[in-house]
C-alpha cells in the first residue's frame, strides 16, 4: 500500500468538515478499535471503521472517499453507542456518504449508491417509497438483474409488493424539499 506523505497528501480542513457535518469531533477518536470490533459488517469492509476515522483525522480525503467501507455501513449505530470517546461514528459514515455523493467521487460500492438513488427518486416523485418500483429501478441501475428474482416473485405472491404506487397529495411539497436541499448543497459545494 502507498505511503502516506504528511502533511502533503492531506486535504486541509477535511477532518474539520467531516466533524461538522457529522456533528461529532473525529479528533476525539483514540483508535481503540472498539467500533470495528463490534461492527457487523466490518469483515466486508476494505477499511475498518477505526481506520476510516484515522484517515479522516489525517485529512486523507481522496483515500477515504475512494473507500467502500462507508457505503457498506449498515447504519446500525452500534459503534456510536459503544465508543468510549463518544465519537458518533455512524454519523461520520453518513457524512462521508454525503460528501462522496456530493463531490461525485466514484463510489466504492456502486450498487449501494444505486440503491439509495432509486429509493430517493421514488420518494421525490411519489412522496412515499414504493418498494416494487424501487426494486425495479435499482435492478436497472445496478445491473444486478437476476439476483433475488425468485424472492421478488415470492413476495408478490404473498401480496407483499404493492403493484400500484401510491401517490400522496403533498408530493409536490416533498419534491420541493428535495429541490431546495439540492440547491443548498450545490451552493455549499461551490463555495468549497
Amino acid at each position, binding site marked *: *500500500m502507498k*505511503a*502516506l506523505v*504528511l502533511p502533503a497528501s492531506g486535504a486541509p480542513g477535511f477532518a474539520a468538515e467531516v466533524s461538522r457535518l457529522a456533528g461529532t469531533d473525529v479528533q476525539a477518536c*483514540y483508535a481503540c478499535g472498539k467500533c470495528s470490533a463490534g461492527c457487523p459488517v466490518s469483515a466486508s469492509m476494505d477499511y475498518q471503521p477505526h481506520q476510516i476515522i*484515522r484517515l479522516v483525522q489525517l485529512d486523507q480525503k481522496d483515500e477515504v472517499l475512494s473507500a467502500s467501507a462507508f457505503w457498506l455501513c449498515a447504519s446500525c449505530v452500534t459503534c456510536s453507542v459503544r465508543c468510549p470517546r463518544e465519537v458518533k461514528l455512524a454519523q461520520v459514515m453518513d457524512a462521508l456518504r454525503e460528501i462522496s455523493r456530493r463531490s461525485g467521487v466514484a463510489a466504492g460500492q456502486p450498487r449501494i449508491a444505486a440503491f439509495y438513488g432509486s429509493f430517493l427518486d421514488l420518494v421525490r416523485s411519489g412522496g412515499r417509497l414504493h418498494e416494487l418500483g424501487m426494486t425495479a429501478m435499482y435492478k436497472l441501475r445496478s445491473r444486478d438483474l437476476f439476483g433475488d428474482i425468485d424472492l421478488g416473485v415470492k413476495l408478490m405472491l404473498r401480496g407483499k409488493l404493492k403493484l400500484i404506487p401510491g401517490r400522496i397529495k403533498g408530493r409536490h411539497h416533498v419534491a420541493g424539499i428535495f429541490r431546495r436541499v439540492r440547491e443548498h448543497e450545490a451552493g455549499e459545494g461551490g463555495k468549497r
Partner: protein
Amino acid sequence: MPRIGVFVCWCGSNIAATVDIGQVTEAAAEMPHVVCVEDNKYTCSEPGQASIRQAIAQHGLDRVVVAACSPRMHENTFRKTISAAGLNPYLLEIANIREQCSWVHADRVAATAKAIDLVRMAVAKVAQHSALTSSTSPVTRRAMVIGGGIAGIQAALDIADAGHEVVVVERSPTLGGHMAQLDKTFPTLDCSACILTPKMVEVVQHPKITLYAYSEVEKVDGYVGSFKVTVRRKARSVDESKCTGCGACWEKCPVKVKSEFDLGLGTRKAIYVPFPQAVPAKATIDREHCIYYLRGRCRICERFCEAKAIVFDQQDEIINVEVGAIVVATGFQQFDQAAYGEYGYGEYPDVITGLEFERLVNASGPTEGKIKRPSDGKVPETVVFIKCVGSRDEHKGVPYCSRTCCMYTAKHAILTREKIHGSKVFIFYMDVRTPGKGYEEFYRRASEEDGARYLRGRVSRVYPKGGKMVVLGEDTLLGRKVIVEADLVVLASGMIAQPDAQEMARKLGVSYDQHGFLTEAHPKLRPVETNTAGIFLAGACQGPKDIPDTVAQACAAASKAAALLNREALEAEAMIACVDEARCSGCLWCEPVCPYKAISAKTISERVGRRTLTRSVAEVNPSLCHGCGACTVACRDSALNLLGFTNQQILAEVEAVCP
C-alpha cells in the same frame, strides 16, 4: 541448669479439639529441664499471662515455652509477659501448635504426636537461649541531602522545617537540577522558574540549611544516626563570601563557551553563573576555558570585580560533616542520542532532544522563547516528535519506560501549537502512558484542542531532503508507511541514571539496579528507604519520575529522615550476628555476603605466650546488622553465629525432631 516452664494453650477448642492437651502436658513434663507444665484455656488472655508470671516466680523459671498459636501472632505479647516477670524477653520460645498443627490436621493421634514434637523442639531450643540485649546508639541530629534538584530542595526544606539542621551538597555551581532548565511544566503548565526559584532562594535563606554548591561527597563512613561524610568543595576561583553576583566579571570576560545549561544552544563566559536566577548567585571560573589558567594572562575579571572576590589560587577544600540521616537526590541524566544514528542527532542540527526543546521555548533561553530551527533560525511549520527514544528499546537503549516523555511531548505539542500559528505537529508513539491525575486529560487536550496528530509507530529513519527533515515511520493502526516532511524533529529522550550513580551507591553502601538507579528497600512498603538504615531516596535517582512524583517522594524521604532524627537514641536489632574472635581467621569471606555492609575488619591484639600479636578479625556493626544470618553460613570457621538462631539452637531443634 536451665529451669523451663511449658505453657500449653487450648485456644478454646481451636487447639484442644484436635490436639490432646493432656498428652502434650504429660510428654512435656518428661522433657529435659522442664520443671513446670501448665495448660490454659486462653494463654494470651490476662489470666493466662498472669499464670505464666506466677509460675515464673513460684518455680524460679528462667526460660519459657508457650505452645500456642504462631509466634507471628503473640511472640511479642509473651515477650512482654515474661519481661514483666523479670526475665529477659528473649528467653522465650513458641511452639506453633495451632496454625501449623491443630488447624491443618484432622487426625487427633497424629496431631497430638506432632504437637509433642513441636514442644520438644521448642524446649530443646530454649534451653540454649541466652539473654539478649539490643545496643543503642545516639543520633546526630543533622541530615545531609545530596543533590540540589527539586527533590533535594524539597527534602532539605521539609527536614529543616521539622527543626533539624540540613547540609545540602550540590555538585554543580547552582541548585535547581533539570527543573531549572524546563519551560512550562505539565500537567498544569505553570512556569518552571516561577515555582522553582522561590524554593531555591528559601534554601539559602533557611537558618537551618547549609548549602555546599559546587561540591561533592567523597566518602561516607559510619551508620544510621552517626554518619561521617567527607565533602570536597571544589575551587570556584571566587570567594563565595565576597561575590555579590553583580556580573561585572562575566560581562568583561573575553572567553565565550557553549553553555551546558542551554545544552550548547547558547553561550556563556569562562567566568559565569549557569543562568540568571542561579542560587547561590556566585560566579565560578571554568578553569578549562579561562585564558589565565590556560596561558597565564588575562585576569580581566579580577580587574572589574569591585568586591575583590576573584581568587585565582583557590584550592579545593575538604570538610567533614557528621549527620544522622542522608537523603540521596542526585537525579538523572538524559539518554545519549548518539546511539540512534538513524535519527541523525548530532549530525543534523534540526534534530534536537526534548530538553533542548525546553531551552528553545524558554523565554530566558537562547532564542528568548521563540521556537527556531537551530540550522537556519527559521520558524518551523511542521514539527515531528518521536517518543520512546532510548526507552523501551533493549537494542539501543534501556528496556524500561521513562515515564515522563509521553507527558512532556504532549506539553511540547501544546507549546508548539500555541507559539507557532498554523504549525502542524505529528507525534510518533508506541503507547501513550498517562497514569497521573489530570494526565490523560492533558494528553487529550494536546490531540483534540491543540491538534497534535498522534501516529502509532516507531520512526525508522530521519534524513534531510531539500531543507526539510524527512521522517519515515509507520502508522500501525492503518498498517501504512508514513512519510512526514518536517522542519524540526524532537526526540523524547529517555531518562537514565547519573553516570556516577553506581559510584555514589558504593560510597553510601546502598544498592542499585541493573540500570544504575538506586534501589528502594521495598517498592511498595518502603519506597523511600534503602536497605541501609538511615539513607533515604528522593526523586529521579531512584528511577524516572516527573516533578509531582519527585516532590511527593522527597516529602516522604524528609519525613522518614525527620522521624529518625527525632529519636533520642536508636535501638538496634537484638538478634544479630556475632563473631567468635578466637575462631575467626580474618578471611573476611563473610564480608561481601552481608547485604547491609555490617561486617568489616578490625585489628585485635592478643597475647600468645609472652608475645602480643595483632591480627585482623571480622567485626559486626550492631547498628547495621539486620540479623539475616547469611554471613554465618559463609564462615567456614564457624566463627559467626546468629544470636537467637544460633547453630547450636537450630541443631538442637533438628535433633529434637529426630531423636
